[in-house]
């Protein structure tokens, strides 16, 4: 791509590879990409007869306008942090786990099963109930990550397709349990869980702190931030994280260094699945309080974009998740309904396209 063109102009423009990347450039390009994406999204909204400025203003107000809606945004961000982490961890090893959506559903199913099957009776203390639910969600998600990890490691089966196919299978499986096993009076939902299976909310403390009244943010957010710390530690402070990063950056060197690619592939897929499973558990315990169909507006897929936007950095996942939580929350009232998905798609496209600016620079010079 090192091409030089004069085009008969008094200056010449060419592109050449960058030798060093200044630290400020990468975040600046990401912000620039998002701004361009929002502009393009605005063009599409205008094309279908909407008012882009009013739409964006509405999204901003409905997501961050006051403490109440911001609390709702944090509720929406909670599962996104988990799935964003799940994708970041797997993508760091260049394992394309596109199955966070299915692992989310499996986590929700597992967490619900311990309650609805009567395994954990209503008399169990709340912390123990929630702990068992979290373990069940985590294990179910990990189990759903095991198969693609195993097939990838042993048979080199493309994990993108297997994780994606398992999404559809997980959703059908949840539908089966909702309709055939735990249906409440023939409706597409189970009975509501006992209070001991609900995550405490900020509003539960409104007796002592009246300012918290009506705030829906639940303990899942704390758990998600804890998970951020754990994933950060794994990736950047542990030996295992070093192996994951080396396998992602240079699999051949990793192999020469004696790192076991087979067991790491399976383990990373399972850990990624466990994180997405926790997202499902958190949503069940914190928001839905029962098992029902369509518990996710595509959280698992949004996790892919979040991971990419956060440059696979666990801490940045929190910030990006809050922004996207706001977009999904406010987007529910936006017509046409596809707008949030469209904006997400354009943002991801702009982000990867803009990466070229990190590798090459445009030079302009007067012709002497």
């Amino acid at each position, binding site marked *: *791509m090192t091409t030089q063109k004069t085009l008969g102009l008094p200056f010449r423009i060419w592109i050449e590879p960058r030798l060093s990347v200044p630290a400020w450039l990468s975040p600046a390009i990401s912000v620039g990409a998002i701004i361009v994406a929002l502009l393009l999204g605005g063009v599409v909204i205008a094309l279908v007869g909407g008012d882009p400025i009013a739409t964006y203003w509405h999204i901003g107000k409905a997501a961050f306008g006051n403490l109440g809606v911001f609390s709702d945004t944090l509720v929406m961000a909670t599962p996104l942090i988990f799935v964003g982490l799940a994708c970041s961890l797997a993508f760091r090893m260049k394992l394309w786990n596109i199955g966070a959506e299915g692992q989310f559903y499996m986590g929700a199913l597992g967490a619900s099963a311990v309650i609805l099957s009567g395994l954990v009776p209503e008399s169990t203390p709340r912390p123990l109930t929630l702990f068992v639910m979290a373990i069940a969600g985590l294990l179910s998600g990990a189990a759903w990550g095991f198969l693609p990890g195993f097939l990838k490691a042993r048979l080199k089966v493309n994990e993108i397709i297997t994780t994606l196919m398992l999404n559809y299978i997980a959703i059908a499986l949840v539908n089966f349990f909702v309709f055939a096993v735990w249906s409440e009076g023939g409706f597409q939902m189970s009975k509501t869980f006992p209070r001991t299976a609900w995550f405490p909310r900020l509003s539960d403390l409104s007796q002592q702190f009246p300012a918290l009244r009506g705030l829906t943010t639940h303990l899942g957010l704390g758990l998600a931030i804890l998970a951020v710390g754990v994933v950060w530690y794994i990736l950047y402070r542990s030996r295992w994280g070093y192996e994951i990063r080396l396998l992602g950056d240079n699999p051949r060197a990793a192999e020469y260094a004696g790192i076991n690619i087979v067991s790491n592939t399976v383990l990373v897929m399972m850990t990624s699945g466990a994180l997405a499973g926790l997202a499902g558990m958190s949503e069940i315990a914190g928001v839905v309080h029962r098992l029902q169909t369509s518990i996710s507006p595509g959280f698992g897929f949004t996790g892919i974009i979040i991971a990419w936007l956060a440059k696979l950095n666990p801490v940045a996942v929190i910030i990006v998740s809050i922004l996207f939580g706001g977009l999904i929350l406010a987007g529910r009232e936006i017509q046409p*309904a596809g*707008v949030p998905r469209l904006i997400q798609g*354009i943002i*991801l*496209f702009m982000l990867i396209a803009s990466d070229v600016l990190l590798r090459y620079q445009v030079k302009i010079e007067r012709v002497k």
Partner: protein
Amino acid sequence: MDPIIILQAGVASGTVLLFATLGEIFAERSGVLNLGVEGMMLMGAMSAFSVTVATGNGWLGLLAAMALSGLLAILHGIVTIHFQADQVVSGLALTFLGTGLSLVFGEGLSKAGAITSLPKFSIPLLTSIPILGPVFFTEQSVMVYIGYALLPLAWFYIHRTRPGLHLRAIGENPTAADAMGINVYRLRYAYVAFGGMLCGLAGGTISLAVSPGWFSELTTSGQGWIAVGLVIFAQWDPWRAAFGSYAFGALRRVILDIQGPQTLLGFPNPFFINPYWGFFMQMLPYAFTIIVLVIGSRGALRQRLGAPAALGVPYVRGERGH
């Protein structure tokens, strides 16, 4: 549960997968992996249906579908061929983008109901062949016959013509192809765009012929991803792609029909007694895709066949070959 009817309908719905799989074969043969098939198919289904509702002409609808899906594919081309972005992530972005665009522009379109503007007909003489006649040549949509015509053409083009040789060359060894004077960039753009157009045709085949109408994301319900899996199963060969596509089409039909009859092969039909078992039937196409990949991978491990050597690797002129 008449097997002939199931196979006949299976060929019709398999035609969708056939177009999409062939399109992806062309893109991947040129060295570009495009995971945006689902998004391009949705875009195709929406635009074909929308234009047909507006103009009453299904052929115009199909043209629009091919043009718009082709444009989406060119976006993927720009990002991956010139900007050398990761083809996996770009393909995913394309799926999001195509889904979002088709949902936004397809808003309210589902109210239009179903329209049938593409003809269905039987082929004289061929229709009277036992078994094959009723399955392949009786009262099929014109799209099905287009599929039959495209199939040998695609095979012949890839394996027996000079441009086909160039196509394989840029996917196997772009550096050598470049040295031979082939314009790698231009050809990759062309085949990515052509693949996108076929995906658009696949989408249009759904919304105009196989299950007419616009049902937002449920229109494709993951068939684009199944097509991506079928390419690997087909080992990038059109004939194997056709076999896989029609087989999956028939499977989809069985799933739809199995809950109807009270008895199955003389036994009480479990899917009739307990319709909830149908949820497990719904899993089958996706489970079969995984199984098919596992079987394909065993073959691939044995003889390293099929995959274009430069698949997924951006070509940078002047850098040493991979």
